[in-house]
């Protein structure tokens, strides 16, 4: 059950002064909000993963260097700088924890996408579950009409960065596969606007009788799976929670604050989905494989990214949701120092926000030396497994757990004996 917190007046004023909001927003999901008010239960943790497909450049974003192509600007945290194109995010740096020592070693797109989604190196013939599927399995609410894991396609610049990784639940079961929203401005594909439809009811009644007989006759697991999946689709259509896919009911000022780019709409939809009880939302935007140089492209992308992420953090905060919502920003690797033309997996940057973490700090450091600074991690390298363990830990998932894969093969949720980044907790 989602708990929709009432808005704190002071927070709202703060938000308004930042120019993000102009008037109070009304909880869009009234029945749930009422339930929330009555409930004293702690809200479950949830996660929004912002995936910059292709590999975003750290020298052009959150690990600026003195001789970089962009100027750097101070943030609300003394000593931590961003590049000049992320001024709004700089104002909420106190809610952000940068990880500047990502050291993952895999520089091929698809293998790295697989690695950074599953925590495992890709081997043929064996699939590992993606982090979103793990979250669905571990903390998802099985009684929710919405799937616990939703992915949102925020569009793309151009066709680079290769094959898109799609989250696979593998041995966790089809139920933990993500539901894809192909375009946040259009909501969920084939979801009717009206839940009430008497003709559909008549048809469903007709279908139900024969389906019942068939299931008795053919008691194959495949038939049960089909009927369960069909029922889930019908329950979703009938559920009030499916309104989470519709951004129309959000007030105009808030939609504007998130921005008109699909990425901003995706962030707004993600917030609504979490309110409706979804545990994990992955938003992906493609085209960050900037081989011709990252400067031009990131300059073009930065306005919508800066606006959307700053608004998301602020909006969650003023709704009292930020403590329980982990935001993760990342790609499959970073880019080579200075111009960002090459793939770079030895030293790159991700960030966490919210989630009850110790934010307002930058963990890890890359070097400042030579003509191409930033190529080496000089303090606190973070491996893929440590990074994955951190996401799990922040979501209240016991990452030391073992799963049993097909063929009775025991397999760790997170590779090896990695530990989470303790500085964040």
């Amino acid at each position: 059950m989602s708990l929709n917190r009432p808005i704190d007046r002071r927070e709202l004023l703060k938000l308004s002064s930042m120019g993000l909001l102009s008037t109070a927003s009304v909880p869009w999901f009234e029945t749930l909000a009422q339930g929330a008010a009555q409930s004293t239960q702690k809200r479950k943790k949830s996660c929004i993963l912002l995936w910059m497909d292709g590999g975003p450049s750290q020298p052009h974003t959150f690990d600026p260097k003195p001789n970089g192509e962009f100027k750097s600007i101070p943030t609300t945290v003394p000593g931590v700088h961003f590049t000049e194109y992320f001024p709004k995010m700089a104002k909420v740096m106190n809610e952000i924890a940068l990880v500047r020592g990502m050291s993952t070693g895999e520089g091929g797109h698809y293998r790295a996408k697989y690695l950074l989604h599953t925590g495992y190196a890709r081997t043929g013939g064996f699939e590992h579950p993606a982090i979103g599927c793990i979250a669905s399995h571990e903390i998802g609410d099985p009684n929710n009409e919405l799937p616990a894991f939703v992915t949102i396609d925020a569009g793309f610049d151009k066709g680079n960065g290769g094959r898109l990784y799609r989250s696979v639940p593998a041995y966790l079961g089809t139920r933990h596969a993500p539901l894809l929203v192909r375009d946040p401005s259009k909501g969920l594909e084939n979801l009717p606007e009206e839940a009430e439809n008497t003709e559909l009811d008549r048809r469903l009644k007709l279908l139900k009788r024969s389906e019942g007989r068939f299931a008795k006759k053919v008691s194959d697991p495949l038939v049960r799976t089909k009927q369960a999946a069909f029922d889930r689709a019908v329950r979703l259509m009938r559920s009030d929670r499916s309104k989470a896919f519709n951004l129309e009911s959000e007030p105009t000022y808030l939609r504007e604050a998130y921005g008109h780019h699909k990425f901003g709409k995706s962030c707004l939809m993600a917030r609504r989905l979490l309110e409706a009880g979804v545990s994990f939302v992955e938003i992906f935007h493609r085209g960050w494989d900037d081989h011709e140089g990252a400067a031009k492209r990131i300059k073009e992308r930065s306005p919508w990214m800066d606006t959307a992420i700053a608004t998301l953090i602020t909006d969650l905060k003023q709704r009292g949701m930020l403590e329980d919502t982990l935001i993760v920003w990342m790609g499959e690797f970073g880019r080579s120092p200075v111009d960002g033309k090459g793939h770079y997996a030895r030293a790159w940057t991700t960030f966490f926000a919210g989630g009850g973490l110790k934010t307002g700090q930058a963990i890890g450091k890359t070097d400042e030396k030579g003509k191409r600074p930033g190529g080496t991690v000089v303090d606190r390298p973070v491996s893929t497994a440590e990074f994955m363990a951190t996401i799990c830990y922040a979501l209240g998932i016991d990452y030391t757990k073992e799963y049993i894969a097909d063929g009775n093969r025991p397999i760790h949720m997170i590779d090896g004996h990695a530990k989470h980044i303790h500085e964040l907790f």
Partner: protein
Amino acid sequence: MSRTFLSMARKTLLGVTTALFVLHQVELQAETDHPNSTKALEVEKVTQIIDREITQKLKDQNLQSNPLTSDAEFMRRVYLDVTGCTPNQTEAQAFLSSQDPHKRAQLIDTLLQDEGFGTQQGRVWRDWIAPQELPSEGNGGNQPIQATRNLGKWFADQFNQNKPWNQIVHEVVTVDGQLKDKPQGLFYSLTGTDTGIPEPAGATRAITSLFLGLDLQCAQCHDDPYKEWKQTDFWAQAAFFKNVQSNFNGRYFAAVTETFGKPTGKGAKKITTRDRSNNGLITIPKDSFENAGKVVEMTYLLSEKIQVEAKQPLRPILSEWLTSKDNPYFAKAFVNRTWSYFFARGIVEPIDDMRPSNKPSHPKVLEVLTQEFIQSKFDVKHLVRLILNTDAYQRSSLSIEKEDKKLRESFGRYPVKVLSTDQLYDSLRQALQDPKLDLRTYDKKALRRFGESSPVGDEYTEFQRLFETDENDSTHFTHGIPQFLALLNHPQVSSGGPKVDKLIKAKTEPQQAVNELYFETLSRPPSPDELDEALEYIQEDPDNKRTYSGVLWMLLNRSEFMLVR
């Protein structure tokens, strides 16, 4: 496991092969003595050997096989398996009303002559070579969708001409030239790098898995501790592809060739290993876990070394060994893969792990079919005819209590399978009589602001993307909320299509309409209960267009419609 062990195992395996072949010859000899010996009898003879072993194995496990399936179920199954589409009403009624005792065998022969046979097998091979999730121009990658379809069509043509399988594979492996003339050239791009440049390692993985039924994947980087393959076995194969190079036309793969020196022509790209070793040698690349930099000599798998001239093309040499009837894996791998297509399970499982220590569940079945396949000069239709005429293929899929899985794995029960993407698309189009069925909710004119494009393919691409199934396991039901939201709500499905328009135009009476709609979807007449329920539903609403569409919608959303069983 040591190399020595493997060589021994292989010798033993060949010994068994010879013995069985003799047995087979004896049985076939007995049959040709029969005065009225015909092709059909020969089929019967082989199917008897197959069914005898399957029955014996069931008996050994105290399992009782399912009875043969009904004519109606058999018909729908064989249409979908062979042609990839349900029968239409005329075809269905003709078969069901026939009194001929040999009508099942006749239907099998008819369908093998149908163009749908090649079409379906072509699509199956297309998806095995190019799984749908590969990058394509529609999802931000480089794989040309049209070229992939052309590859499927090329296979379809070969299968429809009934070109021998060894010839088909030869033409794939040795392909040289422009993609526009030789669509099978795409094989080297699809098995290449992320960006579609041919790569020795990728070609090796694909060729061993698809054509030899062997999984050498792990051996690419290290000796496989679980299997018998050494890393050098892998690279000794890869050496055959060292000189493959390609031309790109812009982003798109345009030609494949095997010439020497620097690549020439527009967009020419050399293979990715920068390997200066002599022809017939290959260097294990840097990113391997073990033996990086080691030079490996080209050999046939588990065989002696081959001497080559400095500039001799290598793939024809590989193909000669690969597609030979003496290759212990080649024919068997195709038989096993084809069997697994129908039964959703190979006689050796997994289907690309036919190493000697991974034993077949039914050695005699595999052996007799392999020998038949070789004897018939790799005649694919002959092989399929044999499989379809077995009792094993024609058994009911109904499950009886707990022994289900065991029974299915012992081929005592036909599996329940989910319609593949293509089977579903064709069957939906046939039921709605809408050849251009388009379930897209987006078009290309969608938002074009910077960074917001939506990749939208044509109606077929988008259907494939939505209803993608597991090409390696047809009993794996992968559809979920998005697929059923489309079938539940998309107007093209819920409003009856041209089929209902025709019923209305012809002023079809409700009973006849229900009957027709059942035939066009489930390939059978409605049961009395089903008819009553449908008529009751129709009578509650005077709008026949709406109610007939409702009945059709109900049928298209039935489990029975989505399954092959």
